[in-house]
């Protein structure tokens, strides 16, 4: 595997990355990834009039065999980050190092060999399967493209995969429309598995599914992880799901990671006010507990990623915000009293046991006025 690094790192600008022993090295390193979508006007003479800052300097590591959960509100850049990791989007800047190889600048041809080891499961089980292709070719296409297997051998392998993910191999010649949502997602899983990847990026793989079917797919993914020695980046907005599947969790807000740590620790003692608010908004099945639990209500809406707030991006909605928050951006660092792997980007992290008071942000007069004008806002909150 170390051999792979040689051609892909021609400049040799990061020898330390390649030099680390293959087994200890993180499978995936994301360094300062930035993804801006330009907003352009004009046809022939395009000029950029702005950009959507979908992902703004995200760094993280994923170790072999673990599951990294990625949570955040809709529009916070989770899916964009996933597509940057798998290079479905070109990066604006930053690096994605997959098993020691910087794949962020590879050409399409060079990328193809690495794509084999890095697959993706998509959110929409209806949109992610070509309605005009049969299941056999949907799952078998990657095998054909990468020249892994042909003819009868390909069919055998595809049917084996179908069996592994719990589909009837006799349905080889059916169209996606003949399957239910859960079965379709199994097809998506089989397709991602076909090339025996090391890393699978799951982009909200269960959020489009019925709750009972969600459990099946999650259990399937967990079984496969052990069986095929897989590493997952698991994106979701359902906190219960993320808590269940992840070893570590990263919380994103408006294109940045605000907090990252071991699942139990992060869920047990969230340090970032946003994480705390997010966790307090998740449903508790026990009504007694639900009544007694404290709910942090955030005011206002997620700001536009075209023109994000200065300093800490959360300061416009943060109940703990101070003047410094709008000026200086807090770095992602280990806060006092936290374990080594638990990092939080906050000037005033939530103390363990502290109850956040859901008041309008202290420093945003506009937000206060807005909240006063419409008192019902924030009642429902957002999660």
């Amino acid at each position, binding site marked *: 595997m170390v051999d792979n690094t040689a051609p892909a790192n021609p400049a040799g600008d990061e020898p330390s990355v390649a030099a680390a022993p293959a087994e200890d090295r993180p499978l995936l390193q994301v360094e300062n990834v930035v993804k801006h979508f330009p907003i352009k006007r004009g046809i022939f003479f395009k000029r950029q009039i702005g950009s959507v800052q979908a992902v703004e300097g995200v760094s993280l590591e994923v170790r072999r065999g673990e599951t990294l959960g990625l949570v955040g509100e809709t529009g916070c850049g989770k899916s964009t980050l996933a597509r940057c990791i798998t290079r479905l989007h070109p990066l604006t800047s930053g690096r994605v190092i997959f098993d020691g190889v910087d794949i962020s600048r590879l050409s399409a041809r060079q990328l193809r060999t690495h794509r084999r080891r890095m697959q993706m499961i998509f*959110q929409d089980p209806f949109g992610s399967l070509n309605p005009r292709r049969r299941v056999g070719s949907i799952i078998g296409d990657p095998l054909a493209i990468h020249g892994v297997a042909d003819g009868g051998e390909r069919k055998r392998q595809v049917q084996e995969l179908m069996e592994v993910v719990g589909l009837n191999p006799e349905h080889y010649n059916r169209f996606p429309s003949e399957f239910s949502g859960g079965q379709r997602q199994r097809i998506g899983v089989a*397709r991602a598995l076909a090339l025996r990847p090391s890393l699978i990026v799951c982009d909200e793989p269960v959020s489009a599914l019925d709750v009972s079917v969600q459990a099946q797919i999650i259990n399937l993914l967990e079984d496969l992880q052990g069986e095929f020695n897989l590493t997952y980046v698991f994106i979701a907005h359902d906190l219960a799901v993320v808590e269940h599947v992840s070893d570590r969790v990263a919380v994103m807000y408006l294109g940045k990671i605000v907090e990252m740590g071991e699942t139990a620790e992060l869920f047990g003692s969230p340090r970032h006010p946003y994480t705390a608010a997010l966790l307090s908004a998740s449903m508790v099945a026990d009504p007694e507990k639900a009544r007694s639990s404290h709910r942090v209500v955030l005011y206002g809406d997620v700001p536009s990623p075209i023109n994000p707030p200065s300093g800490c991006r959360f300061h416009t909605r943060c109940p703990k915000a101070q003047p410094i928050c709008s000026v200086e951006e807090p770095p992602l660092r280990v806060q006092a009293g936290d374990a080594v792997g638990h990092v939080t980007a906050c000037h005033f992290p939530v103390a363990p046991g502290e109850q956040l008071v859901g008041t309008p942000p202290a420093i945003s007069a506009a937000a206060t006025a807005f909240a006063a004008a419409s008192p019902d806002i924030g009642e429902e909150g957002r999660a």
Partner: protein
Amino acid sequence: MAIPAGPWLEYEGGTLARQQVGLWRDGLRRLRRNRLALAAVVYLGLLACVCVVSLFWTPYNPNLVGACPTYALPGTPGHPLGCDDLGRDLISRLMVGSQVSLAVGLITAAIVVVLGVSVGLLIGYVRGVVDAAFALVINVFYGVPPLMIAIVLYVLLGPGLINIIIAIAASSWMDMARLVRGQTMSIREREFIEAARAGGARTGKILFGHIFPNALGPIIVQTTYVVPAAILTSAFFSFLGFGVPAPQADWGGMASEGFSPLLAGFDPYILLWPAIALSVTLLAFNFFGDGLRDAFDPRQRR
């Protein structure tokens, strides 16, 4: 939170989705329900048979002058549709004329499909400068009337079927290109295209293996509108005298030949037969196209 699993969850074995909606089977099923379209299909089938038969056999030699009395009226023994001013058998000429119409219609449609689909897929997928450049090219082509191309080709190359086909194809591929471009732009944003890219598929595979099959319905429908338009335009060219060279029978040319006898008050049937054949054929293609649109194009489905 642990998510409970158990055998009670495994209700998923059955097929919840509607039975198989393969493009062809579904489309043909819908087409069969449409009586008008079905009648059109029957007529077009007959026309195709007549066309094939006329390649090998006609009652008389269609170009034989004096095969029967000039201006023989319909019903003359041996000449059910009568004869023209040169004494040529009209039914024979009408049969042979279908060859030109069908050839022009189908070959033009084939060229339009190949050109329009390729260009549409390319500019819809690549977008950007290529798209803008082709938009300009397409607008230029819209500005050139087919008759002008036909006349120029007639002057340069002399009369011939190929010229007509080129002229018509050159002025009707843009609609197809635009249609396919729009389809491509919408389909390329769907998740299965990303899935294909994640699987390592090359651009060609994505264009022809994934996008094209999903745009096939509208393409088929558009094609069925190209055919009658091409037939009508070619008949129009022939009527004006820019069509196939003289002895060869075609419906537009026959109508032209029947025009002066009609004005002179001799025999309206010389003009009438090709006009009827043309009208019915165009109607049939249009009904067939409408039927296909209802069958294949989900957006306009009633």
